[in-house]
């Protein structure tokens, strides 16, 4: 298991880049078809199945159509920014996949090649940074169109994405407390060491991450920015042809990356459950499978068939989350914009902050007591998290914080009354001025 030489590393890197890029583009194209097919199946009909076998060539037809369409541009639009908007949306979406490990390392005659495009030390910070960049594409598209609807749509979209990035970052902080490193390969390794995927010990972080990821990628129930019936097309009203197509491509690429992240952070990435044989991590230069009873490393046995199996496991988990995205989209109605903002700032943010503190206390207590990092450690954390999740779902979910228009109105009267220092006289009766939200 020697290290790769310089040229071998470059060759392997280029091959991996090409493979991952082609894979991401292919999957994004297939996702457009899959979305339509799943939507149709849920609605008791068949989707497009004429173009190729099972409609496989439909994305090709769509892409060809988008290339050949006339692209109108409003005469008063800011031209360079109009062109730049879709580009800024698409490029970060395509490159975000680079730090996600998708299989166990592959032994080749020239050395061991790890199945991640760029094993940079910054890991998940790269992904957080690029998802912030995605906001730029939306805002720029909305502003450059020189159209009031697009402008407001872009602004609302960016406000929504930005509000949920805080909750996203905080749920990642929870995972970092347990994982101890920002790189995703280390997170997979920690889950393998613990014998439990992080979704169980950190269940509330998983729920918060899922909700925030739905809002980040502008998917229903958070798709107010592109709600077709509300703001025409929102920020992409004035776009047509390929420039428009780059926005949904970016959205599907973000969806793919978020699903892969959910699988990696919370479901073990490429780990196959209940099997120690696939654990692998580069520990001080050698690949180990774990530590035995005395703490000395056990070398890992790498094989090409293990790579394929673990890639299959990763693909299954990512596909499950993508299906979850689509399944939820065709089930739940859209949230109103103020409900989205309320959820992000008043529910997710305080919950995430409190949960960070609870997990930190639990972890430090477990370490102080001396429980070794392993299954028992994880099981205790699971019970604490299950308690927090139950509290979150049963207390917070009762329609007190996030509810219909009437509740917000009541709240507004209360704030007014408190500001004026008197009792609130509302259509719901006379209420006190000191009650809390």
């Amino acid at each position, binding site marked *: 298991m020697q290290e790769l030489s310089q040229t071998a590393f470059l060759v392997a890197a280029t091959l991996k880049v090409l493979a991952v890029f082609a894979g991401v583009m292919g999957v994004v194209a297939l996702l457009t078809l899959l979305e339509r097919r*799943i939507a149709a199946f*849920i609605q008791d009909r068949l989707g497009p199945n004429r173009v190729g076998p099972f409609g496989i060539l439909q994305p090709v037809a769509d892409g060809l159509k988008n290339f050949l369409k006339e692209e109108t541009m409003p005469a008063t639009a800011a031209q360079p920014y109009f062109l730049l908007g879709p580009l800024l949306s698409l490029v970060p979406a395509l490159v975000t996949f680079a730090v996600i490990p998708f299989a166990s390392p592959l032994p080749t005659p020239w050395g061991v090649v790890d199945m991640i495009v760029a094993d940079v030390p910054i890991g998940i910070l790269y992904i957080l940074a690029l998802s912030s960049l995605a906001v730029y594409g939306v805002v720029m598209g909305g502003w450059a169109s020189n159209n009031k609807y697009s402008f407001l749509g872009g602004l609302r979209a960016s406000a929504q994405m930005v509000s949920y990035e805080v909750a996203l970052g905080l749920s990642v902080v929870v995972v970092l407390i347990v994982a101890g490193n920002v790189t995703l390969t280390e997170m997979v390794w920690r889950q393998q060491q613990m014998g439990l995927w992080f979704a169980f010990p950190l269940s509330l972080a998983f729920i918060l991450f899922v909700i925030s990821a739905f809002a980040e990628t502008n998917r229903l129930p958070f798709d107010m920015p592109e709600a077709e019936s509300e703001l025409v097309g929102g920020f992409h009203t004035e776009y047509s042809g390929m420039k428009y197509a780059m926005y949904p491509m970016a959205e599907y690429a973000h969806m793919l990356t978020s699903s892969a992240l959910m699988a990696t952070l919370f479901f073990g990435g490429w780990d196959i459950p209940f099997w120690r044989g696939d654990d692998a991590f580069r520990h001080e230069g050698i690949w180990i499978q774990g530590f035995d009873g005395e703490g000395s490393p056990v070398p890992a046995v790498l094989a090409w068939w293990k790579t394929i199996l673990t890639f299959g496991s990763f693909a299954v988990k990512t596909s499950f989350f993508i299906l979850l995205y689509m399944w939820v989209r065709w089930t739940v109605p859209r949230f109103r914009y103020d409900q989205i903002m309320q959820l992000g700032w008043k529910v997710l943010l305080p919950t995430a902050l409190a949960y960070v503190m609870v997990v930190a206390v639990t972890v430090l207590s477990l370490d102080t007591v001396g429980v070794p990092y392993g299954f028992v450690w994880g099981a205790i954390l699971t019970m604490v998290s299950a308690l927090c999740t139950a509290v979150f779902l049963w207390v917070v979910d009762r329609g007190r914080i996030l*509810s219909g228009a009437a509740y917000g109105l009541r709240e507004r009267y209360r704030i007014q009354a408190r500001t004026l220092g008197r009792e609130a006289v509302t259509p719901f009766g006379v209420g006190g001025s000191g009650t809390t939200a």
Partner: protein
Amino acid sequence: MPPKVKVVRRPEPERTSYLRATLKGMALTFRHLVNPNKVTIQYPEERPVLSPRWRGTHRMEVHADGRPKCVACGLCPTVCPANCIRLVGGEDDQGNRYPVVYEIDEFRCIFCGMCQEVCPVEAIHVGVDYENAEYTRDRFVYDLDRLMEQDHPTALLWDPSDPRSE
């Protein structure tokens, strides 16, 4: 008499669990997802089942020797609500009336079937046919020869078991 009052119990917002409602909804959509019975008709391999009273493009009946049954009485252009039938009548040398020009503009037609109802000799019929796409607009004006050579079944506007039908 006082009207019957039905009391609808709606769940109060403070007592509902949105999570349970969402999960019930997701179970429903999942059941639809895996349900193998879809309502899509795979045209052109499968055709929709049309009822015998379905009204489509027209057909002119002919006598055994190939002459149209139409006697150019002028009832169908008069009754047509969309004004789509153009009829110019004439007499042949034996004194029988026949249509010199008979055109139906299928674009204007609303396929109501009144021309078939009103025809005293059961010459013009609306047919059970819809597969007649053309490349140019003027191909949609059916003249007499074209109407005579259509071969699809005609709409059954009267109930055969009704003794007053013919």
